[in-house]
């Protein structure tokens, strides 16, 4: 009887151990940046002057918490690591912008107990090639996920902010 239970127990232990490794940090931001550029370039800084703060606040619905925004770029792309609260906690996401459009997005850290669907490729691929249109809004509708309304909203706001910051970083 005990012997028969050993195998399922061992498999359950392995599954729990494997699950425990993943945690909530899907990818460290440093690793994301290195993946995009092949190495980690020196960070640059976008200074959020009062005018830029006002534009960022209009997107976020609240004043930006940062006054200097780090980013990483080469001749073709820029990378923005942004954070915004979903329902209860901050979501950390990496945005790669090329030629004024979102190249790709990844959720790096997701802290809430619900709504993790926003990190799935079926959701994130909607941002691909998105650009800013009138009023600093995205040029497309992002379909929501039932039960993750506020996390979806946070991801959309961060995408708009990354595109705005990218535009401003080019002077």
């Amino acid at each position, binding site marked *: 009887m005990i012997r028969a239970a050993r195998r399922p127990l061992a498999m359950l232990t392995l599954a729990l151990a494997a699950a425990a490794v993943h945690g909530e940090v899907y990818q460290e931001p440093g690793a994301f940046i290195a993946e995009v550029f092949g190495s980690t370039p020196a960070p640059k800084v976008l*200074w959020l002057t009062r005018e830029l703060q006002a534009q960022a606040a209009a997107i976020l619905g609240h004043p930006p918490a940062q006054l200097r925004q780090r980013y990483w770029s080469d001749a073709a792309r820029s990378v923005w*690591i942004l954070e915004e609260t979903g329902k*209860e906690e*901050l979501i*950390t996401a990496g945005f790669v912008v090329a030629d004024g459009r979102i190249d790709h997005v990844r959720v790096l850290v997701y802290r809430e107990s619900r709504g993790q669907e926003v990190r799935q490729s*079926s959701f994130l691929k909607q941002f691909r090639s998105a650009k800013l249109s009138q009023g600093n809004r995205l040029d497309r509708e992002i379909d929501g996920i039932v039960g993750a309304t506020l996390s979806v909203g946070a991801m959309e706001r961060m995408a708009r902010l990354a595109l705005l910051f990218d535009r401003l970083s080019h002077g």
Partner: protein
Amino acid sequence: MKRSTLTLALAAAFGAMPVLGQTVEEKLQVLQQEIDDLKAQTRKPAAPSLQVSPYSLDYNSMLDRSSGLANGATNVVGYGEMSYSKFRQSGDATADLTRFVFGFNHRFDERLTLHSEVEFEHAVVSADDHGEAEIEQAWVNYKLSDGLNFKGGLFLIPIGILNETHEPPTYYGVQRNQVETRIIPTTWRELGVGTHGLFGEGFRYDVGITTSFDSGKLDDPLTGMRSAHQEGQLANARNLAVYGALNYRLPGLLVGGGVFSGDTGQNGASNPALQGVAARFTIWDIHAQYRIAGLDLQGLYTSGTLGDADKVTAALFAADPATAFAAPKSMKGWYAQAAYHVYKKGNFDVAPFVRYERIDIRQAEDPANGLFQNPNNDERIKTVGVNFWVHPQVVLKADVQRYETDKTQDAYRLGLGFMF
């Protein structure tokens, strides 16, 4: 000496960074603002609830430092709704702060979190008023990974669409739909333990063991088993229940279902006539939601049965013949809803909708004692209305409802809802 050090520091600071068309004066303004903010912060007591911003917000943070997950942080969330109803037949009108809910969520460490919601209904709570104060949720979650969470406490049962996602800006209509009110008793919570998580691309499972209903507490003939759910209030727990749910979510799409089953006799704890009576209650649902090109489509079907319903009817009569009624023995309901986003600009979003609901609750009649089927348990409801979001989290609503059986419920309604 001091001046030269400052000059060198500023030169190093500005020289090391790209100019990006921003003048030194603009940058000095930003620095001054940061200094003012820091000064203001030093005057305030430490705020443990502030969320840690490990990557983008703290300019001086090292990129390779380990992820801070805001341990010890407490967040406040909430939602609320109020309505005006004008009843067509009687001409009566009421205005009500239907509910105001606030919740505290606390992170103990990277894996352990607390989720809670406290609800006040109808604005005033006292012995002489209609208001209620209740704990809607209070549960602890231990997250091993997205795929494996364990939870314990008072939590929402994952059946239907509305029960877990019931904030006013997330649904159409001034009032919650009647199928997910009278048959699925939203907001339905039980004390228990469970596990939940994601697998594959878009699948979410939920399974667990909880407290069950208590048939001896039935006191409303029009809401199926709703009046027998115990809400964690000194719940009789001789009989427990099991639940399971599987949902598939993609952007714009939800397909899923859930089931809950448990005995409800509670060995006669609240009605001695139910001693030794199982009175098993089982309810299940399937639901779907699809959004395409501004069109929102939603549908749900649910069905439930109560075993030993005739014995429950007899027990209710034995307890109090004056208030007794025939217990529900089976219940079915479904609805179909369509909405179309006709106007969207900035935060403004306008979507008219139509909904058709069917409710069919069959009761275990006892003709000898004059307990019969209530005709209002066979109902069809048509609702036509509009949701106007002035912000994704704040909605104005208006609708007209027509009941095919209970005409006294026909009404025009206005509503305001919010969540944060």
